[in-house]
């Protein structure tokens, strides 16, 4: 199974490494050459230097026969555009897009894009952690 990871920062690189360990054939795409370093010295997968908005770069990375595409650059709008291009132009069935802004993530989820919002996830986890402390909130102060 072939996976494309667009945006090889902290999130993208670790995701690429994990998918690789799980037996995927992974190609990472990033516009900065340093990003390759995040994949370690023994990276056996592919790496394409270029911007994910560039369809030539996407083709070179093998988007046309990718089974899964993960879009995780540091720009929400860039990710949303690339995700839609992967889905609509290259007809990828499994496209997952990172969107930090909960409002945009929700809007595009409603339009059929599989958006993952780390901000919402963090809020939920933090809330659960606070609730799990079993410390009762103080009584509202009397005035």
């Amino acid at each position, binding site marked *: 199974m072939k996976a494309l990871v667009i945006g090889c920062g902290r999130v993208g690189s670790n995701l690429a490494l994990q998918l690789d360990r799980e037996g995927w054939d992974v190609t990472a795409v990033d516009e900065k050459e340093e990003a390759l370093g995040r994949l370690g010295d023994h990276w056996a997968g592919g790496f394409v230097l270029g911007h994910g*908005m*560039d*369809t030539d770069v996407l083709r070179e990375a093998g988007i046309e026969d990718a089974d899964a595409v993960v879009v995780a650059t540091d*720009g*929400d*709008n*860039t990710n*949303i*555009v690339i995700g*839609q*291009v992967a889905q*609509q*132009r290259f007809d990828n069935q499994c496209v997952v897009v990172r969107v930090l*802004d909960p*409002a*945009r993530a929700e*809007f595009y989820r409603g*339009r059929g894009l599989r958006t993952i919002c780390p901000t919402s996830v963090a809020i939920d986890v933090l809330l659960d952690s606070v609730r799990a402390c079993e410390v009762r909130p103080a009584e509202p102060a009397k005035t």
Partner: protein
Amino acid sequence: MYILVAGGGKVGANFARTLLKDGKHEVTLIEQRRDRFIRLEREFEHQIQLGDATEIYVLERAGIARPPDVVAALTGDDEDNLIISQMSKEKYGVPKVIARVNDPRNQAHFDLLGISPTVSATRGLMALIEHEVPEHDLVHLLELRKENLEIVEVQIDERAPAAGKRVEDLALPEGSRLISIMRNGHAEIAVGSTELEAGDQVLAILQPGKEDELRKVLLKS
């Protein structure tokens, strides 16, 4: 009409200014860079807002839900213009959305996502240049406005008086210099002893207005 303009750069600010001069429109300009916003606020007063126009709360504060008659997405970022256009059309039902395409290579993405009409200064310029090139022997490549200099490209043909001459023997106009010679795909810095040949592409730097004198020396006898 109520017109929402996203992006207060040269394009967006001038567009908003023109609309306001008409005196027939209600305009809100959105700019995300604080320095630009502060400068523009003196001129646009309540008609400009600070914020990222791809954020839903910023758009709503600017009245996207009314909705405006026109949204013009004119930022310097194609991704942003695409998102602003999509949300305006599909979330808020804005009847007319105009998007700016900065890099013509991104035009296909706008087409794919149904964003139309689009405007592209680069594409327009390219068309103008391509149109002019076959007719013209001298092409303006770069304007250094602050320095009051410009860089031009000149094509030397067989009939050019400069063909076969050394750079130091040319009576170049004052305020002009040859920079480089491109020959058979290789560029060389032009020095006094460089000999010009037919087929050379020459880059020159000069003060604006000296083009005709330069043309005379290099191209016409």
